[in-house]
């Protein structure tokens, strides 16, 4: 009983509410109407009629502040003819300023809205005034006119027709910014003035007694690291940064894996998921892999070529200190909950669209700083290797790790400007509204793909080639042999460097590329296999007839050969395009590049850690922990990435927050895909945990490790000549080491190509023609 009363009341109330909405439109008829600016005069017919033309005259194109304009609104056409009981009506709405009536034919509903009155519904044009605002904003006018046939009563609105006109009057100035929050202004002023004041006060005190303060006395330990230009200290800083971000990137990967461990999981929202995979990529490539490489390059290259330091030690310090600042910028968005969510490739036009998080701007800014850092590093290493080799060391007597750093830096130096340009364009698009990638403004989204991949493909070789260098060093030393085919190793690296610039099209196979270019890129991409194959076969041949000493770095090197070969083979599937159109953007790709980047670069640099740690710290690493690290990491690594190949083949795509399993309604991934994903996620945790063994090992050995001799493994290059750890400067600049050569040919004698050039050129000894 009670319930039915309630529902009856509800019905009554809703009927009333409906009536309130409808009534004004019905009753206000001959007397004018308000509130039609969006709906139109819909009680005179649902649609505007083409036979009626409404117009507004008297408005300027650009108005002056507070000026009064005479406005005439009128219409022509429709059923309105002389002799009708009524002729028509209007409704005018202005977004700003004030409307005023001149006579009784019009009335105001508000300062923004006017219509005809009962008296004025027998007209086809009405005169009004509009007083312009003083804010300078653009003002929009919306006019509705109704042409009526004059019939009265309930069907009074039938047969009438109406029209809508819209016009905009431009403001005289830019849009006025909203008022700032006074408290924010005050707080900003206080902070800025306090900082300035403190700097001035400190400066005055410092000038008064310059000897009163010295960094080295104030905080000697930190000063040593903050101000050092020694290549070894900077190398350590790079190394620590690289390892730290390897951990950060790893944790992000774990978040991704927890989310994907079962389909339809909601462990993290897609908003966070997108940020995690973006920053996982950016962190791993730019803040983990590159600094790890730069760390070893800093440490080892000057030692290997017998140089006291790098060519530009201060530039080197600048290169490093740009990195943590850039990292802070890249992560700024994350701290505010709106990190970059574009993928590490940051495809345009999404990267400049309004849907992206605010953190993308900071992400771009941070990467611009990394571009600067890498360019400076490039200059530094190219110069150092070119001019600071010790006496007796020709180009073809450099250790292969130095060669790999030379090739990698040359590639980086030539490719990274394109990335820098692209990032600056993105940054400008996002901040000051340029239109490089805005399609509506004539921008080109594919331009970004070109700039990015022109850099991006050499970049992945930049991070793998130094690992080749490490492997060449370790395998030769461990097998107690010279490396097989030293020169072909160098040519192969140079070949990879060259080819890397002409293959990037394979990242854009599905972007509507021309068939000819598709074929060319397919061929060049396949070509990469040739120099890479030479390297693998040379390494294998180096072991031939040797006596392989099994140490932890040897294990990692053999592990590298297994995983990198597998990654190389799976890479051959992509250039074959009829296959690639299925595999593109799937987990097959994810599996492939983790096999070459983790199984290649990271395994290579794990080998480097076990190989050079005694040199860097003067302490031996614990071999038993090292072997345990290798075994656990190698097994969990393969369990983590190998199943991804299979998931990719059945069509699981990357960068998605969830995946779909076949149900009664939909055909998608097979049911076992969920089980494999669970296995992958568990292996990911094991792999992460196993790498903590390395950290434990390094810390433990640093404190309690055995003292390392100068040449613990029996290598030949100069770094094993110095004490462990090496002195500063690493070599006495006045007494540089001299490289001897076990081969009979004279050092620095030109090769065949050099001899040919020498024959072509006028000899220095030949008598000059003009002299006799």
């Amino acid at each position, binding site marked *: 009983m009670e319930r039915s009363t309630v529902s009856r009341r509800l019905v009554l109330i809703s009927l009333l509410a409906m009536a309130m909405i409808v009534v004004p439109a019905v009753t206000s008829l001959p007397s004018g109407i308000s509130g039609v600016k969006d709906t139109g005069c819909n009680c005179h017919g649902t649609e505007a009629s083409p036979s009626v033309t409404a117009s507004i005259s008297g408005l300027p194109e650009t108005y002056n502040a507070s000026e009064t304009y005479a406005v005439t609104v009128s219409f022509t056409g429709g059923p309105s003819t002389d002799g009708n009981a009524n002729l028509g009506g209007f409704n005018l709405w202005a977004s700003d300023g004030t409307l005023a009536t001149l006579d009784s034919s019009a009335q105001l509903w508000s300062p923004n809205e006017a219509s005809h009155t009962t008296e004025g519904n027998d007209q086809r044009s009405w005169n009004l005034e509009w007083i312009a605002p003083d804010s300078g904003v653009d003002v929009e006018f919306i006019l509705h006119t109704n042409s009526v046939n004059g019939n009265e009563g309930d069907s009074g609105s039938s047969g009438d027709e109406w029209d809508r006109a819209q016009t905009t009057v431009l403001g005289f100035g830019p849009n006025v910014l909203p008022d700032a929050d006074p408290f924010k202004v005050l707080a900003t002023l206080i902070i800025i003035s306090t900082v300035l004041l403190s700097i001035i006060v400190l400066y005055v005190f410092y000038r008064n007694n310059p000897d009163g303060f010295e960094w080295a006395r104030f905080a000697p330990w930190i000063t040593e690291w903050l101000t050092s230009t020694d290549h070894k200290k900077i190398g350590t800083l790079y190394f620590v940064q690289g390892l730290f971000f390897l951990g950060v990137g790893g944790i992000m990967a774990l978040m991704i894996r927890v989310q994907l461990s079962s389909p339809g999981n909601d462990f993290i929202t897609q908003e966070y998921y997108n940020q995690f995979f973006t920053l996982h990529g950016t962190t791993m490539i730019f803040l983990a892999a590159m600094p790890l490489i730069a760390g070893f390059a800093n440490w080892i290259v000057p030692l290997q070529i017998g140089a006291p330091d790098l060519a530009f030690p201060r530039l080197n310090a600048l290169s490093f200190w740009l990195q943590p600042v850039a990292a802070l910028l890249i992560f700024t968005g994350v701290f505010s909950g709106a990190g970059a969510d574009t993928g590490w490739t940051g*495809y345009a036009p999404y990267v400049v669209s309004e849907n992206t998080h605010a953190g993308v701007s900071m992400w771009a800014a941070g990467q611009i700083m990394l571009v600067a850092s890498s360019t400076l590093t490039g200059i530094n290493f190219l110069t150092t290797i070119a001019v600071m080799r010790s006496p007796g060391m020709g180009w073809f007597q450099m250790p292969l790790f130095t060669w790999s750093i030379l090739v990698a830096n040359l590639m980086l130096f030539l490719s990274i400007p394109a990335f820098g340009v692209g990032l600056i364009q993105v940054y400008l698009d996002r901040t000051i509204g340029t239109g490089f990638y805005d399609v509506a403004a004539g921008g080109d989204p594919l331009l970004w793909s070109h700039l990015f991949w022109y850099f991006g493909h050499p970049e992945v070789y930049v991070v793998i080639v130094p690992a080749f260098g490490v492997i060449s060093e370790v395998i*030769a030393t461990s097998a107690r*042999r010279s490396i097989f085919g030293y020169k072909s190793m160098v040519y192969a690296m140079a070949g990879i460097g060259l080819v890397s610039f002409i293959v990037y099209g394979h990242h854009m196979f599905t972007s509507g590329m021309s068939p000819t270019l598709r074929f060319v890129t397919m061929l060049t991409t396949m070509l990469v296999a040739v120099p890479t194959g030479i390297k693998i076969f040379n390494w294998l041949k180096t072991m031939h007839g040797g006596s392989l000493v099994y140490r932890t770095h040897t294990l990692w090197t053999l592990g590298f050969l297994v995983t990198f070969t597998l990654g190389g083979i799976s890479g*051959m599937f992509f250039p074959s395009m009829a296959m690639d159109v299925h595999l593109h953007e799937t987990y097959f790709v994810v599996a492939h590049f983790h096999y070459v980047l983790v199984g290649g670069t990271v395994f290579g640099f794990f080998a480097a850690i076990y190989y050079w740690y005694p040199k860097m710290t003067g302490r031996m690493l614990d071999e038993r922990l090292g072997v345990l690290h290798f075994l656990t990491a190698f097994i969990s690594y393969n369990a983590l990435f190998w199943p991804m190949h299979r998931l990719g083949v059945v069509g699981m795509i990357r960068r998605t927050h969830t995946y779909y399993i076949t149900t009664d309604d939909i055909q998608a991934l097979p049911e076992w895909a969920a089980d494999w994903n669970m296995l992958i996620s568990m292996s990911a945790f094991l792999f992460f945990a196993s790498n903590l063994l390395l950290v434990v090992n390094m810390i433990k050995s640093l404190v309690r490790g055995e003292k390392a001799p100068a040449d613990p493994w029996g290598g*030949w290059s100069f770094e094993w000549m110095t004490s462990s750890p090496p002195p500063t400067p690493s070599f006495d600049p006045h007494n540089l080491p001299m490289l001897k050569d076990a081969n009979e040919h004279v050092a620095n004698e030109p090769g065949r190509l050099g001899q040919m050039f020498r024959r072509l050129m006028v000899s220095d000894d030949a008598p000059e023609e003009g002299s006799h």
Partner: protein
Amino acid sequence: MAGVTPLYDAIWNDYILWSLFVGAIAFGWLYHHSYFYRSEDGESPNIDNLEVGVFPKDYDNLRLEVAWTILPFILIVWLTYISWAPLDAVWSETGPDGYHGSECQEGESSESYIDADGYVRSSCYHDLGITGQQWFWEFDCYELSEDICSTGYATVEGELKPQLTLKTGETYLATMTSIDVTHAVKNPGFGIMEDVQPGQITYLWMPAVEDTSFLMLCAEYCGDNHAYMTAQIIVE
């Protein structure tokens, strides 16, 4: 991994065969050497007399090095060669030289079939439109009759998604574009994908040879709801 498309499977099998061949050589070699040439006492002999500060004596063999430059090169030329013809099939041109002829007249059927080499051939094709937008797909059958192409809605994990119903034995050429950012049409059932770009038109062949149904996905990251930008495709 039974059957993405006959074309895909043929190349896949070839590549797997060659991968096994290369893998067998590399891994056989690696495992053999790492066992046979291991050091007995964990230390020397120092085979090549490596000495600190002395560039080690050369160890090379030009014939071997040239051999493993030339042989892989021949292999990749072969792999490129077998990947070449399928390339033309996937991005076939229209007209008599292509695999799918010209556009069908009204009432005409494609009569698509798979030839002995695994290529889909048709006498003519039908045009349809796909538009990507954050974060849904829109299909347009243009003026095709209901039985050849029809659009509707399907429920995918509780959400309403667009549905495209195609007819078995017909071949379609999708004309695609995007309204906002880059997306990519990924049709696992046809084994194909192609990007859709704002301000640009791309094309994609969709040969519906066999009865199937699958979930079409967006394969180019496009923002928040990227993972949920799906559509149902039914071939019947």
